């Protein structure tokens, strides 16, 4: 099996889906001849031509808005937003239109499309090249939200997302775009949406993470193991609808949970996970669910290392939870 990084896996998934289904088109700023500022669409323009891989004018609202039209028509657009931080000009089209189109037309229309966007910090990107906006979309009925943490999943989940009947926000962990490498099968395979992966097992505590933070959490779990604390580590992969069964099964076993994400804490996805776990497993819990997250500040530049959860911080959360 070839070894790929996440960018290559994303590129491979796009190529495979475009070969399989001529309704799939790729669009966005700099995705054509240039191949994307992160190179995720490299080679597609040459292979599939400018009708199916094209640069757009500089307008995220236009990218998503016209992609909606294409999906209504019957195509399967895969628009790229250059950075997740720049998705907000398209927020109205996503929240008011994309998310609601099937529902408000009584199921007469649907908008199967995948918005790809690199998200997250750790690349010294400051305010606007670092954000993790997943909670906004998880809170919006009608959208699915997927975040892979490794090349294998990146490819398999992106293929599933493109084949899905509904709109998917597909956020890619740009911090580990190249650093995360692994074996990726050639050709076509689909990793099912809505299923978490149990990355490692242990009986003392459940650690829940996704995307780039999965790696931070894994480091922390390894450190905890050195101290004799053994953890279940769940990689959520699909954030909405999230895999409540996998979560509850693990938490009922361990009686403890730590949730990790980069986004600001207040009203972040960790709040939902915490609420859900407490609601459904209170009597199994030995400690409150703990959130290790980004702080409630805009994403900083110089103090990025203070802002982002690191393994030590997750470890200290695990310790605190286990000692509670």
């Amino acid at each position: 099996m070839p070894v790929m990084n996440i960018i290559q896996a994303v590129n491979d998934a796009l190529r495979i889906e475009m070969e399989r289904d001529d309704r799939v088109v790729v669009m966005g700023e700099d995705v054509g001849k240039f191949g994307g500022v992160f190179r995720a669409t490299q080679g597609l323009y040459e292979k599939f031509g400018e009708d199916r891989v094209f640069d757009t004018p500089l307008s995220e609202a236009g990218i998503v808005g016209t992609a909606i039209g294409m999906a209504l028509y019957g195509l399967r657009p895969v628009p790229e937003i250059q950075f997740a931080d720049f998705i907000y000009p398209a927020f109205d089209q996503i929240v008011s239109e994309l998310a609601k189109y099937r529902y408000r037309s009584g199921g007469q229309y649907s908008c199967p499309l995948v918005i790809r966007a690199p998200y997250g910090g750790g690349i010294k990107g400051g305010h606007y090249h670092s954000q993790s906006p997943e909670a906004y979309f998880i809170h919006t009925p009608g959208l699915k939200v997927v975040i892979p943490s490794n090349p294998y999943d990146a490819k398999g989940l992106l293929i599933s997302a493109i084949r899905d009947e509904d709109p998917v926000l597909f956020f890619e962990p740009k911090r580990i775009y190249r650093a995360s490498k692994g074996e990726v099968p050639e050709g076509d395979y689909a990793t099912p949406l809505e299923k978490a992966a149990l990355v490692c097992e242990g009986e003392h505590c459940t650690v829940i993470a996704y995307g780039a933070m999965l790696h931070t959490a894994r480091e922390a779990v390894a450190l905890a193991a050195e101290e004799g604390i053994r953890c279940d580590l769940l990689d959520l992969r699909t954030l909405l609808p999230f895999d409540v069964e996998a979560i509850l099964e693990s938490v009922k076993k361990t009686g403890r949970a730590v949730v990790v994400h980069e986004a600001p804490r207040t009203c972040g996805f960790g709040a939902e996970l915490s609420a859900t776990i407490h609601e459904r497993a209170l009597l199994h819990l030995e400690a409150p669910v703990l959130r290790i997250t980004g702080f409630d500040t805009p994403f900083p530049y110089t103090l990025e290392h203070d802002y982002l959860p690191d393994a030590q911080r997750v470890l200290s959360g695990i310790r605190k939870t286990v000692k509670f």
Partner: protein
Amino acid sequence: MKAATVVEENLVRVLGDGGRVEKDKDPGLSDDDLLTLYRTMLLTRLLDERMVKFQRQGRIGFYIGSTGEEAAIVGAAFAMGREDWLVPSYRELGAAFLRGFSLREFICQLFGNAEDLIKGRQMPIHYASSRFRVLSISSPVGTQIPHAVGIAMAARIRKTREVVLVFLGEGATSEGDFHTSMNFAGVFKTPCVFVCRNNQWAISVPRDKQTASESIAIKARAYGFEGVQVDGNDVLAVYATTKEAFQKARRGGGPTFIEAFSYRLGAHSTSDDPRVYRSENEVLDWMKRDPLVRFRQYLEKKKLWDKERDEKLTHDLNHDILATLKEVEKIGPPPDQSLFEDVFGTMPWHLREQRDELLQWLKEKGDKLENN
């Protein structure tokens, strides 16, 4: 507050005073076609009257009419072929009727009942019909415009002959979505025809406070394609201009922007009272240019129409409306569990749970009511 700016000399016009017509510009429609146009315009006019009353009586929740703008709406939509796509804002019922959307389907939507095609999900007037390629109406102003351009981009990619007709108000030209859509349309040379109903008002905001541009049509130049200003109260002029734009689009000539210069004679919606913000005189002035009257005079001059036929048609249409209303009023609401359908194509676990939660609560409530 002056509402109407117009570069009069550029206005495309076919129908003159008293039913006269500029011969060389007459699009030469068949008698049947002419009468279809008139019938559709009259139908929405009568619906407007009836539904405003209905709303006042509390029998429907809300209504938006098109009185005064029928020519712009019906004239433009008449240029469409079966394979084309209609992307309405919220004031183009006549266009939907021309596509084949039925009175009954429309009225079911007003009631949001169990037979409503959109399952009672949206306010009155927010219909959708995939069968007739009528997109789903959305309240946010301007959000439909990029969809139209996207469909046209798709048609170009698939190399079909489809053309998209999108409607918007002059107020909508202020939104970012208008700009971005027009720009994409220009860059990708999409087969898309924009018809902007410049009815001089966006609720209480007059045209001159909406934008300082000399006309609305001129905005198209910022995107590298043609903008035309047409007399929006002249159904033949609107039809001819739109037809030409469709032909150009089908030839691969790209988009056209049409400003239909007209006037909203009624209130913005049943929630509005225009007397607060505009003068009765302005309205009276525009009533003189009523597009239905102008068109009727033309038909009469052509001997296609007369008072008697008009009274009979009015009577028949009113009868249809009332009969349909009567029928439709009896239909119940959609079932409670339908609340959770169509959020996704397949219902995920959390919505299944919430559905069961609701049904459980409703059962508790019902039990309690029974026990009382």
